[in-house]
């Protein structure tokens, strides 16, 4: 991106063939009844919803829409502009959010592609394409923001390691098959952590769901009691886990934010509709809110484009942190404003699961926005990252 580019070029509109692709996705959404799928998932119980998600995911995969961001060798290879069009049209078409496949498609895939062995890629990437789900086993009860203090231990044993520890806040673990696990193989701090691919069906693994504020059981605890993990399931060298986790997290953060930014831009229609329906007396205030958020959403989209441009030559952890910081707070502000503008009508809606993070079901959207300032690095920690790595401030009391 240069200063002479227009915003449209940033969003990839000038690439040829994109209109055709958009139309293709649109048509596909209509034929496959994307909206109907989202409604079916909202009405389903958790297990049925998990099954429906897999079914929908497989249809997307079949069409090449599920992982366009993967390398061509693995069935992706779409340009960023194409990824954007696919994401945007799926969202506009009302397609359901695939939260249970999220870690597999982004974080696990990035880990395997960036740091995995050829064998690990061969084993796991095709399995993800056929619906295998992953979760993340990073946080522990005593190690949240201070992840480097994690205690889960992997002790060398014949042919691999024996792992014992307690992970928590693992989203979707109850429906996952595999887990990205950080465990201690060396001394204290960042230098003693290794990265593993844990099969959740291994003897000694127990998953316990935690009921959250939305009434769902998305978060889970994972207990590992002397679980055997083979040596070939370690990613990278022993005690290299921290570096790998950092590299792949930022990889993931940048790409998912592309999708989120499109969702956010599309989601503005709900706010527009709301403001259009306001009584004349409240219209002015509504327009002011609309103007303010339109500006912020556009700024966020540009920021995403800039970070992704920069990350072509290698991911920038700090820049990716900024994206999540901006997105999460913007999402909370927009859904709060939406709920406020919708007035009490915004309350009378039983939907506790929505197709996207912004659906116009304001109470559900508002509630769903809460977790964004916490998961994947609490905003408090991300601010430290910005202060230290972007601004070069001295390290504070975070170590």
């Amino acid at each position, binding site marked *: 991106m240069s200063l002479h580019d227009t915003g449209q070029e940033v969003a990839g509109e000038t690439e040829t063939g994109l209109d055709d692709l958009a139309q293709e996705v649109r048509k596909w959404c209509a034929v496959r009844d994307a909206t109907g799928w989202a409604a079916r998932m909202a009405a389903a119980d958790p297990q049925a919803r998990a099954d429906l998600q897999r079914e929908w995911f497989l249809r997307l995969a079949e069409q090449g829409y599920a992982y366009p961001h993967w390398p061509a060798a693995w069935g992706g290879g779409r340009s960023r502009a194409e990824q954007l069009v696919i994401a945007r049209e799926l969202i506009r078409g009302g397609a359901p959010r695939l939260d249970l496949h999220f870690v597999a498609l982004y974080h696990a895939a990035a880990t395997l592609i960036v740091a995995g062995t050829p064998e690990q890629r061969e084993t796991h990437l095709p399995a993800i394409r056929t619906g295998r789900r992953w979760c993340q086993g990073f946080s522990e009860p005593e190690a949240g923001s201070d992840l480097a203090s994690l205690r889960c231990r992997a002790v060398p044993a014949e042919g691999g390691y024996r792992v014992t520890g307690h992970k928590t806040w693992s989203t979707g673990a109850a429906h996952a098959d595999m887990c990205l696990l950080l465990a201690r193989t060396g001394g204290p701090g960042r230098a003693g952590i290794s990265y593993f691919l844990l099969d959740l069906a291994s003897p000694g693994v127990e998953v316990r769901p935690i009921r959250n*504020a939305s009434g769902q059981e998305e978060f889970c605890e994972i207990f590992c009691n002397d679980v055997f993990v083979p040596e070939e399931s370690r990613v990278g060298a022993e005690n290299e886990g921290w570096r790998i986790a950092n590299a792949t997290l930022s990889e993931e953060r940048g790409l998912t934010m592309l999708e989120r930014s499109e969702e956010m831009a599309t989601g503005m229609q709900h706010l527009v509709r709301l403001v259009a329906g306001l009584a004349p007396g409240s219209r002015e205030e509504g327009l002011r809110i609309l103007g303010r958020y339109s500006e912020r959403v556009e700024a966020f989209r540009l920021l995403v484009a800039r970070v992704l441009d920069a990350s072509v030559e290698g991911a920038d952890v700090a820049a990716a942190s900024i994206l999540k910081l901006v997105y999460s707070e913007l999402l909370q502000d927009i859904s709060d404003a939406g709920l406020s503008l919708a007035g009490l009508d915004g309350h009378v809606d039983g939907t506790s699961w929505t197709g996207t993070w912004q659906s116009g079901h304001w109470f559900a959207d508002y509630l769903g926005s809460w977790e964004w300032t916490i998961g994947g690095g609490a905003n408090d920690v991300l601010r430290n990252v910005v202060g230290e790595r972007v601004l070069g401030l001295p390290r504070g009391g975070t170590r």
Partner: protein
Amino acid sequence: MRTTMPEPILDFGRSVDSALQRAGGIGLARDAEADYAAADLALKALSQVGMYDIDPRDDLDSAAAAAELCRVAGAQAAPCPVVGIILRDPADKPFALVSDECPIIDHAAAAPLWRAATLSGDVYEARVVQRTGSNLSPFAMKVGLTRLDDEPASPQDVQLALALSAFQLLGTGQQALELAIKHTREREQFGRPLSGFQVIRHSVADLSVGLEGLALLCRFALWQIFTGSSDALPDALAAKHEAQRVVRNVLRMSQQFHGAAGLADEYDISVLARHAQPALRLPTDMTTTLGHLRAAIEERGFEGLYAPEHAHRAALTTGEAR
């Protein structure tokens, strides 16, 4: 106005608090979601400490006792409509303020019939139509309204309903702050308690200052209802609006300090934040409350602590001193 509650009232508050805690505290709200019978335990505890003997319309002392009870009920997320019950009519119908466009009453199922009024004083009979079905406010229910040709609602009832609801939110906010302080003292990350980080300390201090201001505003509104020389509606609306603004922020920040635990129902802060939503948003959301406040000020003026004549007197005194 006295800036502190009289000791007997505070004493009463402590007995309400221990009665609710004995009955199960915030756990009652959690339990009531699975089985509404738990709500009866809260009602029983509040009845034993004399909730049904208080009529806040009697005088300022009674109103202060009612306010203290509502504050403590808010702090314990008591799963019952305390403000409505305290303001019930002679036929024992609880009272609620509603919006006539989208009428919702929290814990509406606690009574077959309600007496409801809009902020402008139109009176209705209300009965449950359906639950809103939101996890955020599990007991809020949509009600059907039948217009009654009674006299308009007494301004005192409307003002007390707003002020008592503000007290209830104040209690919720104070509890959320307590939970935040407790958690940030106990939770250690990077080798020290979260409360050792300046940014956390500053945030907690801001929340505490906000709640102090709210507490005073709530007391002032109550005092104005009984002793003010002018209509106290702007004061009651101001207290409610400030409660909506301050407590929403306290809850969000406290949840953020708790990290993911703040969103897990095993932790009290999550339950407290969800059950506080109706009081935060009924009968009108913050933005609409502010609209009503503006209109009320325009129509009736806003005397405040420093009414023009007082201000005038103060200026004169200063002049003399000079």
